């Protein structure tokens, strides 16, 4: 499935031209189908920018309003999905900025883009017996498939996602939650394969570290 179809929520058989024509004509059936298919992903992406599900839902509605009212101006210079996705992220950023002005400063997490996957203090130093090897190794997670499904663990995961810098979060959401391929994400965000992997790596590593903190804490 090409990225734009994944975002537009279109069945594979529906071309950009078909969708644009249908939206311009006010074809409600096609619109409802697109809306329903794209809703979970749009909400998930929007949720990365704002603090509540309710606001994320509002963003999806606003995004679709901007799509429906703006479709006459869509010139097809980019894929439809890319255009829709940029509307979504712009709407989400606007809402997010509005929210942040109302939040205490401490709730803004700095973007630690260059952070290593694992805290360097957990490896042996150069003057130790095995430099670069684990000093504080990870402890195996017991029954992760079950424990990570609990409501509390899911909240931890969402919290971990919310703490990621924007691009890392977008990529983790699109790749790991929504199941898009690397190629699709690169197309959508105009990233090279290599940069996509770097950001995915930082994002996943950070989420793992936060889950480790949570699970080790629960075991302690």
């Amino acid at each position: 499935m090409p990225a734009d179809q994944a975002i537009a929520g279109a069945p594979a058989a529906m071309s950009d031209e078909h969708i644009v024509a249908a939206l311009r004509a006010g074809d409600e059936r096609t619109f409802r189908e697109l809306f329903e298919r794209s809703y979970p992903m749009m909400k998930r992406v929007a949720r990365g920018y704002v603090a509540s599900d309710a606001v994320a839902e509002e963003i999806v509605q606003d995004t679709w309003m901007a799509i429906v009212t703006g479709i006459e101006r869509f010139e097809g210079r980019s894929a439809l999905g890319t255009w829709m996705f940029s509307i979504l992220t712009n709407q989400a950023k606007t809402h997010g900025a509005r929210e942040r002005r109302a939040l205490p400063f401490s709730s803004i997490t700095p973007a630690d883009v260059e952070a290593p996957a694992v805290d360097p203090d957990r490896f042996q130093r150069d003057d130790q017996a095995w430099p670069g090897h684990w000093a504080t190794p990870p402890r195996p997670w017991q029954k992760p498939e079950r424990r990570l499904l609990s409501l509390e663990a899911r909240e931890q995961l969402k919290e971990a996602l919310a703490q990621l810098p924007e691009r890392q979060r977008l990529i983790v959401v699109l790749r790991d939650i929504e199941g898009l391929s690397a190629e699709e994400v690169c197309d959508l965000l105009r990233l090279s394969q290599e940069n996509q992997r770097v950001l995915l790596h930082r994002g996943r590593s950070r989420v793992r570290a936060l889950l480790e903190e949570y699970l080790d804490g629960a075991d302690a």
Partner: protein
Amino acid sequence: MHNPGSRHDGHPASDFSVAADEVTCQQFVELVTDYFEDALPPRALSHVEEHLVMCDWCLTYVEQMQATVDSLRKLKDRSSREPSDSLLATLRAKKAAGE
């Protein structure tokens, strides 16, 4: 369990910094995503695979990364909400204008 004292016996510590044919655990953890994505060049891939045979701790780390990805996948929200009344009204107005 990985135990540098026995597993790596015979390798003085300084060997790790000069030996380009091995990766340390600290280097290893930065290669995990490329490993998952099949993006490692052949030489790096064999280093990673050799390291995994040697090091139970890094194997645990890989399992945790996989569990992280798996649990993210389960967050997928399949719920679907209705378009708002104002959205539908806008669409209907479009249709009326076109007719």
